[in-house]
């Protein structure tokens, strides 16, 4: 008997029915996953859109709490359902999930119902006390977001003070004896040169480094052109990841890099609606965490039948589990490894879903992005803070007239003329 392929094991799975096409018997796991599962392998659940930060690349355009946010009781019902469906763990995020007053209760509730939790935080509530509480649970995993190995690089994206806050949280966790926290980094043009520094930081804290891809989703759409790694940086990243192997987690988010040749560890497939999905703070179910847009909205957990019915019967998910047309990509020799790349990245950059990924390493994305008819799309919801924080956002336009001279007379409070008080001669 030659080797029968019976088992595949994965250290930390990703971040990975009503079927239209009949499922083939046997075949690879990836082929099986493309037809969907009875329940997600894991799912992302954003508990709140409220956030103390205003990161420029926020996937969910978070900032302000949504008044329709699920109540504590509604969240508990969702957890009951996940337990019944045997969803073994959830990735909880936001917003900043720990700013919900019932966050710690929901954490306990999930763990008590055999739903393991990994939550993402910017560290704001990870006090020494909370760190000790977290260290006492076997089933909770903490992921601290950091997008620069130095305050300068991090705070440019995440806001002033956010680097110090994350470092304090990591120190508190390490001192409390919390084992194997995750440091979660979105790889950008500015921090891709700091990968060794991030790895060292993780090692110094007894933590594991997790790198994920910058997606043009949410507010990320506004900064993607400026922040996504260049073609040569992608090559460096690929080599770094190959060398790091399973010692660095990626949430399987770099499968588009497989087009360089070798597949990276993990599932090299788009799991949207097949093995993963997202529940947002108001209970809307989207195909994946990077696709918060009405086109990828499958339903809401408050509808009759709840989450299970959305997962098993939504038209959208049935479509995603049907064989996909991948257009010209299928003629590329690397198609089997990258499978056309990330659906959300294509969607939000305005590329056709059956074409190449915008960051296709074979260069097909660049020509697609050059299409003059291309129209980038923006998120269909926006909970951004209405005020902007200092030092980010559009560069203020400077008009060279100088500051008004102190001798200028005060403008009347009711002056309606938009040019009231403006003197082009700049006295």
């Amino acid at each position: 008997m030659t080797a029968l392929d019976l088992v595949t094991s994965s250290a930390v799975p990703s971040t990975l029915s009503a079927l239209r096409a009949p499922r083939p018997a046997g075949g690879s796991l990836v082929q099986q996953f493309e037809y969907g599962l009875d329940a997600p392998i894991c799912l992302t659940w954003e508990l709140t859109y409220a956030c103390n930060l205003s990161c420029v690349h926020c996937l969910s355009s978070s900032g302000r709490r949504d008044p329709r946010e699920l109540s504590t009781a509604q969240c508990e019902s969702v957890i009951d359902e996940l337990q019944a469906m045997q969803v073994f763990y959830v990735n909880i995020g936001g917003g900043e999930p720990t700013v919900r007053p019932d966050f710690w209760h929901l954490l306990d509730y999930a763990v008590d119902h055999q739903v393991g939790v990994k939550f993402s935080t910017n560290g704001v509530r990870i006090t020494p006390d909370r760190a000790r509480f977290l260290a006492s649970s076997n089933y909770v995993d903490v992921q601290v977001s950091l997008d620069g190995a130095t305050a300068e690089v991090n705070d440019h994206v995440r806001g002033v003070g956010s680097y110090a806050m994350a470092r304090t949280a990591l120190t508190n966790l390490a001192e409390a004896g919390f084992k194997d926290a995750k440091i979660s980094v979105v790889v950008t043009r500015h921090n891709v040169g700091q990968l060794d520094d991030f790895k060292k930081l993780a090692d110094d804290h007894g933590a594991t480094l997790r790198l994920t891809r910058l997606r043009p989703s949410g507010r990320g759409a506004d900064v993607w052109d400026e922040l996504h790694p260049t073609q040569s940086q992608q090559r460096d990243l690929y080599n770094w990841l190959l060398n790091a192997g399973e010692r660095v987690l990626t949430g399987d988010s770099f499968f588009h890099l497989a087009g360089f040749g070798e597949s990276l560890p993990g599932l090299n497939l788009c799991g949207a609606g097949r093995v993963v999905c997202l529940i947002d703070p108001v209970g809307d179910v989207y195909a994946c965490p990077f696709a918060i847009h009405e086109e990828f909205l499958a339903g809401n957990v408050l509808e009759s039948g709840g989450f299970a019915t959305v997962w098993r019967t939504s038209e959208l998910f049935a479509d995603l589990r049907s064989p996909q047309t991948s257009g010209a990509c299928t003629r590329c020799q690397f198609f089997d490894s990258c499978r056309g790349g990330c659906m959300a990245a294509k969607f939000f950059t305005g590329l056709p879903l059956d074409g190449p990924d915008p960051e296709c390493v074979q260069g097909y994305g660049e020509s697609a992005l050059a299409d003059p008819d291309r129209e980038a799309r923006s998120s269909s919801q926006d909970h951004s803070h209405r005020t902007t924080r200092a030092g980010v956002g559009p560069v203020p336009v400077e008009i060279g007239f100088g500051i008004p001279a102190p001798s200028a007379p005060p403008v009347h409070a009711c002056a309606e003329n938009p040019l009231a008080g403006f003197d082009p001669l700049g006295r």
Partner: protein
Amino acid sequence: MAVPDVAVSLDEPWHLSPSVAIRPESFGALAYHFGNRRLTFLKRPELLAVVQGLDEAADVRTALANAGVPSDEWTAYVAALDSLASADMIRPRTGQDSAP
């Protein structure tokens, strides 16, 4: 958590680790270990039947036979059980097993 450094043999009694939950799927099953957070895919329904039958069978041989696995595939199945053992998904049954 100490993982016993043993190989699975046909003559031994084994069982599922107490920290492992199994979710059947059409291709086989997902097995999740709440302690070490490893997820493992059992890629054949027959392997699921073997794993689920371990506890009641006197030994691995009986579990394989009960699950209807043809004897010329036993070597491959024992290798699969070995890899499950190395991830602490299954454990040797020693009469009194303690939870992790």
